[in-house]
């Protein structure tokens, strides 16, 4: 383990990315992300934080290729992103597991769709990943038999199974209770240390962002723009105790004051619900 983040080559480039989407109800286009620019280096763990509804999830969906961008460039390893690819995988906020498949059946799902491995090899890989995310003994449990935290472990294993270059995580622990969330953060860092994937992690939890990431990128209130990028120079591996250290709290305060500014300015134009 190095003291500081490994400075690999640039993996993801977003330059002046602008994203609109269509609001059916109001029958007009809506600007979600406004010329956002950011880079993610290979092997880096980057967290995106910002006021809710600021477009960070929208940007993540665009990186995954689920929605198109209206302007700017979005490139992974120098190739423009236009559709979902086998080099990216998303861990969704909702576990979104197939309820009729067991844990292994769900972990195997992405491999099965992409068809790179034989049935036997895919199954072995899935079983390995179930073990990696700490679900040994629950291989054959159905999602309805698993707790929320365990379902998110399956969700994570499913994304890791296709061996992506870039792992996208969309508030994966937001729906979990506070204790489970802290434990899952610890587990995610363990998995990251073992797999060394490039991570792009969206969250609204500042503590979570500082704890996990090499770098925290703060978004403005909607339409989302990059406001601030903070390198988190905290040693790894990080235990949960680090959250009480002075250096940690300083980072937290810095990011919080930046977001608070945004919240105050957006108070003048309240975000309408349902957007």
């Amino acid at each position, binding site marked *: 383990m190095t003291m500081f983040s490994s400075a690999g080559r640039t993996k993801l480039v977003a330059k002046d990315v602008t994203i609109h989407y269509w609001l059916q109800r109001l029958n007009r286009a809506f600007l979600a992300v406004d010329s956002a620019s950011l880079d993610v280096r290979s092997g880096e763990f980057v967290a995106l934080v910002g006021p809710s509804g600021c477009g960070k999830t929208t940007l993540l969906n665009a990186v995954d290729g689920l929605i198109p961008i209206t302007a700017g460039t979005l490139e992974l390893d120098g190739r423009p992103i236009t559709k979902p690819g086998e080099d990216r995988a998303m861990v969704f906020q909702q576990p979104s597991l197939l309820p009729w*498949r067991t844990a292994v059946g769900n972990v195997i799902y992405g491999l099965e769709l992409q068809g790179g491995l034989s049935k036997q090899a895919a199954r072995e890989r899935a079983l390995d990943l179930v073990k990696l995310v700490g679900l040994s003994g629950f291989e054959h449990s159905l999602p309805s038999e698993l707790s929320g935290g365990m379902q998110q472990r399956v969700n994570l294993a499913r994304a890791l199974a296709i061996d992506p270059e870039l792992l996208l995580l969309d508030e994966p622990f937001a729906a979990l209770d506070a204790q489970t969330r802290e434990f899952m953060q610890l587990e995610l860092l363990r998995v990251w240390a073992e797999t060394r994937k490039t991570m792009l992690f969206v969250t609204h939890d500042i503590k979570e962002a500082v704890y996990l990431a090499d770098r925290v990128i703060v978004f403005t209130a909607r339409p989302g723009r990059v406001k601030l990028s903070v390198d988190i120079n905290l040693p790894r591996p990080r235990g949960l105790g680090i959250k009480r250290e002075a250096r940690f709290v300083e980072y937290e305060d810095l990011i919080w004051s930046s977001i608070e500014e945004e919240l105050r300015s957006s108070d003048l134009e309240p975000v309408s619900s349902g957007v």
Partner: protein
Amino acid sequence: MATQLGRDSAVTPDGVGVAAFPDVRSRPQRIPGQPTRLSRYQALIIGALSVFAFFAVWQGVASAKLVSPLFLPGPIDIFKAYQELLQGGKLWYDMWVSGEELMLGYVLAVVCALPLGLLMGWYRRLNYVLDPYITFLYNAPRISLIPLFIVWFGIGIESKIAIVFLGAFFAILINTAVGVRNVDGALLKSARSFCASDAQIFRTVALPGSVPFILTGLRLGVAHALIGVVVGELVAAQAGLGLMMATAGATFQTAKVFAGVIIFAVAGMILNYAILQLEKRFQSWRPSNRE
């Protein structure tokens, strides 16, 4: 698996769970939710007693001649009616004809409605094309088409098959299409994220997701199909239980009418039970269907 363990340890007298309470051994305490022998069978016992009491009262009323047997025959009269019908030798034939109409019409409906429903649920534009006709026919009482079917197909089994078909067809078609259309957006998004093709999404998400809806359609279809057979035969037929009942009713053989009603009711119960077993088989992943 976990619940299984919990139940076992609750039953074992020297289980870990009860060790903290020294009184428990001498005065075994029931754990809330733990089934007793009585609670396990009480539905069956109470139900059977209720039916028995009902038949006793019914027979009592009939024997006392409180009501004319012309209006209310007793259970024994109905039993005699069965004997008479069996001796005449026509009952089996009537049941065969009605059963044939029911099965052929229903199977034909399943074979046509399932694929069409899947296609309509999947291809929105096909739905736009077919929706006007389906809405029209679904909202028209299908029974009102019987005179037309008699003109087209005659009074043999063909007209009854047609009416059974139409009844079951729409129930299955509409439920199947709704099932495919109601596919979970989150599952769709994750499948897309893993680069799933449309065919893969259909096979792995839409089709299994619509199974509960399809089964509901199949069950509603059975009910519609039974109505089709009865009404079709009551209106015009050459054979069948409905015709037997119509003839018996017209000649005031009330016990035989009751006999027909009971056969239809039992047939409906058996078919419903069969579909329930099908649901258990295909929906074992649903939490409500698991033991």
